[in-house]
């Protein structure tokens, strides 16, 4: 499904949720479509979004709206030649209603001429024209590359000897990756990351004392320092190293939900189609990560296979219900791979994150009692969270010192299509 019309050329505007959208916009430009990533969401744009919305919709709805309204105030903005990118990632999430409501609000505020571009993840974004597959692959490679830059920046920054070096390098390398994406070649992105790897590796570091690693999960808020209350730097200042859940893993989570549904309904065609898509994306992921994998110190190089998350989740939860609802399983998997604590950021009223927070804070007891902290973002800022972060960091250091590792509960669940086994009744939780 695509709702943008071909009446005349339009500029596609991407919300300022994260730097990943810069790569996506570049991928569109590579194929001749004018595309702009709006500035990262700020206090001002969020306030605008709150003003024009009812205020209690999903935060990502408000953010997208606010970013566009702020963007519309820029000189040269022409609503008749603008389209807002609002992807329809899953029909299970309220986000499937964004487009219709966005349209109504834009109309009420004199921006009715702006089109809503709603590519659908469920059909692999078919409908973006004949080049959708190429744009999709290029955009995907760009997204993975941006994720890698973020990971490496966060691996190096706590140990850098020249304050600001990792941040400066990140900004330079982000421009390099975006430019490479705009050139239209995945190989160019890989080449750019090779340079980025050298640049980051050249930053002087002191890694004599390894800090407790904090996993940060929480959907779309993780990659924007305003939206995540600057939690990454806050945790670094308190003596931690942060591992932000990779953005691109969200798409694998979506695939897991679709695979589960296909499995339940014994829908072989859908199952194999999504599996093929998933495999294809993973191949690109592996190619892109190759030049930087030596820098991913102590972390998993690649996203875990679908089965790993499924096995974490299944004894407790049905992954088909919501992909955000299995963030807790992602986090515990990262703890199994060396992290010392989990920080769950919960966008206000985000159903998936609320489920994840509720599950994770219980299931963690099954897996070594790893420290777990929920932080709710509700556009009011982070008053009073400092005390909790300090105590949480204290716990993470305790957990790291104790050498405790989780004991993952991983029952063997056959992965064959159909014939789903009985979900076990949780005991002793």
């Amino acid at each position, binding site marked *: 499904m695509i709702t943008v019309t071909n009446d005349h050329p339009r500029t596609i505007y991407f919300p300022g949720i994260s730097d990943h959208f810069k790569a996506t916009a570049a991928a569109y430009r590579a194929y001749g479509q004018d595309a702009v990533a709006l500035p990262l969401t700020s206090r001002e744009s969020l306030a605008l979004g709150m003003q024009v919305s009812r205020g209690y919709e999903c935060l990502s709805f408000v953010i997208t709206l606010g970013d566009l309204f702020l963007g519309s105030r820029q000189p040269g903005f022409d609503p008749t030649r603008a389209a807002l990118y609002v992807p329809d990632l899953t029909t299970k999430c*309220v986000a499937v209603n964004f487009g219709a409501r966005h349209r109504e609000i834009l109309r009420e505020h004199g921006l009715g001429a702006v089109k809503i571009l709603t590519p659908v993840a469920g059909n692999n974004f078919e409908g973006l024209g004949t080049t959708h597959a190429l744009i999709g692959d290029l955009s995907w490679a760009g997204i993975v590359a941006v994720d890698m830059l973020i990971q490496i920046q966060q691996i190096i920054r706590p140990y850098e000897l020249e304050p600001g070096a990792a941040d400066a390098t990140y900004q330079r390398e982000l421009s390099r990756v975006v430019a490479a994406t705009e050139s239209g070649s995945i190989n160019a992105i890989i080449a750019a990351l090779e340079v980025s790897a050298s640049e980051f590796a050249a930053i002087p570091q002191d890694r004599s004392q390894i800090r407790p690693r904090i996993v940060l999960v929480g959907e779309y808020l993780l990659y924007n320092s305003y939206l995540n209350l600057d939690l990454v730097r806050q945790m670094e200042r308190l003596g931690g190293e942060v591992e932000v859940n990779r953005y691109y893993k969200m798409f694998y989570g979506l695939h897991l939900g679709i695979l589960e549904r296909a499995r339940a309904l014994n829908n072989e065609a859908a199952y194999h189609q999504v599996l093929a898509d998933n495999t294809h994306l993973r191949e690109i992921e592996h190619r892109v990560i190759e030049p930087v994998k030596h820098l991913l110190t102590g972390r998993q190089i690649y996203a875990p296979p679908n089965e790993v998350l499924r096995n974490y989740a299944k004894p407790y939860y049905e992954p088909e*219900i919501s992909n955000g609802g299995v963030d807790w399983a992602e986090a515990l998997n990262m703890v199994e791979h060396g992290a010392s604590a989990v920080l769950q950021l919960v966008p206000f009223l985000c159903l998936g994150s609320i489920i994840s927070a509720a599950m994770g804070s219980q299931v963690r007891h099954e897996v070594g009692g790893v420290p777990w902290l929920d932080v709710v973002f509700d556009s*009011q800022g982070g008053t009073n969270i400092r005390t909790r972060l*300090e105590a949480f960091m204290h*716990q993470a250091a305790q957990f790291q010192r104790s050498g405790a590792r989780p004991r993952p509960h991983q029952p063997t669940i056959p992965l064959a299509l159909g014939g789903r086994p*009985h979900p076990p009744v949780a005991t*002793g939780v």
Partner: protein
Amino acid sequence: MSDLFLGIDVGSTTVKVVVVDHSATLHASRYLRAQGRPSATLLQALHELGQECDLSQIAGIGLTGSGGERIAQQIGGRHVNELVAQTRAVSAFHPEARTVIEIGGQDSKYLALEWDEAQGKLVLQDFSMNTVCAAGTGSFLDQQAERLGIAIEGEFGDLAAQSQNPARIAGRCTVFAKSDMIHLQQKATPLPDILAGLCLALARNFKGVISKSKAFTPPILFQGGVAYNQGVVRAFETVLGLAPGELIIPQRNELMAAIGTALITIDAAGEAAPVFRGFAALEELVHEEESNHRPLPALSSCSFALPVYDTRTAFERRPEPADQEPEIASTPLPVYLGIDVGSISTNLALIDEQGQVVARRYLSTAGQPLEAVRRGLHELSVEVGDRVAVQGVGTTGSGRYLTADYVGGDVVRNEITAQVRAAVAVDPSVDTIFEIGGQDSKYVRVSHGTVVDFTMNNACAAGTGSFLEEQAERLNLDVTTEFSALALGAAHPTGLGERCTVFMESDVIHHQQQGADLDQLTAGLAYAIAENYLHRVVNNRPIGKKIFFQGGVAWNQSVVAAFQNLLNRPVIVPPHHDVTGAIGVALLAREALDERRRAGEPVETRFKGFDLSAREYETTTFECRACPNLCEVNKIVIVGEAPIFYGARCDIFEEVGKRPHQTSQINQIPDLLAERAALLLGDYTPPTGPRSGRLRVGIPRALTTFDFFAYWRTFFAALDVEIVLSEPTNPQIVRATLEHAAVESCLPAKLLYGHALDLEAKGVDVILLPSLIDREEAALGQRESHTCTFIAAAPYLVRTHMSRTIKTPLIVTSLHMRDEPTRLRELREMAIQIGIAPEGVAAADAAAIAAHREFYAALRRRGAEVLADLDESQPAVVLVGRSYNIADLELCQDLPYKLRKLGVLPIPFDFLPLDRINIAHHYPNICAPSGAAVIASGLIIRDDPRLNAIYITNFCCNPDAFFSGFFRQILGEKPFLELELDEHAADAGLITRCEAFLDSLKLIKGVLA
């Protein structure tokens, strides 16, 4: 250098300082209220301690608390995290403890501790705190004590401990609990019961929201200033199931964080520490004016020429009859009495037949509405009692029914109608009314004297007067004098949060700690209330050109100025703006009685006279056990009168001579909710007598059961399995839910916890928690048909959280209802899990599907009959929303009954032919059957002039943020009422909304007592 160390805890409301030596001996201490000036208070504490100890040679200083870090940086002290400090102190004095409850002024903390053999001390294993919300903190009780005019230290706890029958008060949020308390006051609930109810709400809130249902492993310590409150101690014992005295209250419990900080400072004495720069640096901090706030324009920056109304003759004058005799001084002046009983103020007004105000009173309700009314009547009697003759009495406000019974009222009208009546009397061209009272805020749009739209604050105190009063009190300012003067003088008002009272409170603390001045803060608060009101109450509704600002808050010129600045247009405060509700209802009483006179009816007021002020009454409270609602009923006995019963949701007590005509009116209106329940339940009766050996399956009466019970009863009957439904939602189930539900979801999803616990108590063999992944389409043209994410997830959450508490097996089954082969496989798996043969499942399912379809077909048939018979003489309202809201009478506060009592026919929206409506032309992307049903019903209601709508939703319902928006778009100019329901128990606000809505549609003609 001495052996003395300072531990300093700079909290949000208090400053604690201890002087401790190496052996952990406490040499001296201070505990002072900060009054918004933490640095100055600390200096005072240090000055006082300097009289007892030599502080010049202190060996080390540690600081903790929300304001500790900034001061530590300024003076060169060691900053210690509060939770770590608490752990250290507990380790030193109560190493046996495993759980700590700490409740201070603005913060509450839960700590789980474990003994670490290697370190030889307690370590912090888990914790949680309140976030930006002050629910479950000491300030909540502080506020209520202030409101009730009782001392928080001593008196509050002593009174609470006397209660035999604690009142039921919602505990999810400070604001809701406060609303409940106010409504309980208006129902004349005894004070000790209210206080005990508040303590229980605090304890339940702590357990459910702050500790998030984490384990309370004994021994349990209770510390912080609130631990001195015996009422709260008793409440925790009740909530945690502890024997009296089992909760450990450490000596000097309020100082534990300060002591722990000192001990950590001692522990770290050999390590590198910040260099102490002396307390002089603190002096600098006191005077420093640094603040990183975003300044707003000065309140005085915007002014307009305003119309002037004569306060004596402002209210409409009617032409005097031509044949009127000259007034003889000895003839009593005919007057009408209006009484407006609100949360903060109780107002009385006497108007003459020309609408002039003869006398008026604005009194504090002070938690005792009938006392306030009695005092007001007495004062009016003294002033004009011998010169007037009361012809009629109108009552309004949230205590209007009680007051009407007490004084002998003739007309009872909701506040909105009353406020509008008064405003139009002053100036018929008024088009917008802002009314801000103590606990309620209202917005009304008026066109040619008629209400065309209105809304009220949604059980939220943001933008109400009580917030301003509390903040002023916290800042040690008189809200009526100093506050406004300071605010209007501020050059750079502080920008504060704009969403909720509690957030604003936190922001004020934060800005205070950043050094913002009082004038900046007061001006910021004036803006904050205005912004809150505009964003949260008005919420994008149109604001006209002639705005009246009524209610007590309009006295505050800074708030008037804030509105003018924000709106850039004049905001008019009419004469007698603080008693317009009383004046309005007096005018309404005059008109209603005139109409009856014109109709030739005998008209005699029921007014019992001013001398009522001399008569005594007694109030007792009991829990009515006639049905599972277990209403708290107040019995009020006035000497010489029949008792008045108040607070029951039904009219069971109204047989004592109250409003008998309404009972007959109700009986003439079909009870479609009861019919729906009967169709859903079919032949189900709970099993009784000794067990027969058949398997007994428990099914929660929650969520999808309200749609699928016909399916389940048929399915299990075919398999020869007994089923037991949990009880209809009742206060015990709500209470159990709030204590165990460790999830921030909507109330209906949380209630699954309480219903599972109820089934455990019923001794079933297994508890079935079906997780419906999808279901049939509700309307034509849906893209997909998934149930709400949270509704599907709730069974999994309950199983994960409750499998330790509930010993009965919790069977969670995912069900894809739309796909028969999948459904049958899932049902067979379920059958094996619960121990029944899977062979009969297919046949049972076929019968069950047929029963499920027949259930909906029966609803549609009955709906068609009702619509066929419906004419304009019978007002009708469609209840739109999920069936677990509409059909759960506890959740919807028995709204259908209340509507019928008002003479209105409530029609559940699934009685409409939703399945014949194609929504794809309007909204092609709808994947939720609940959303599709909302849209389809909107299309039907829009096109049928006989139908109006009440949209029922819940706090935290994310999908409804979209669906109600779509509904609004569809209905266009046709108004509808949106009710947000949750554990907020009081029902006065609900009736007001319904009455005002129905009034605006001219569907009802007011309620005559």
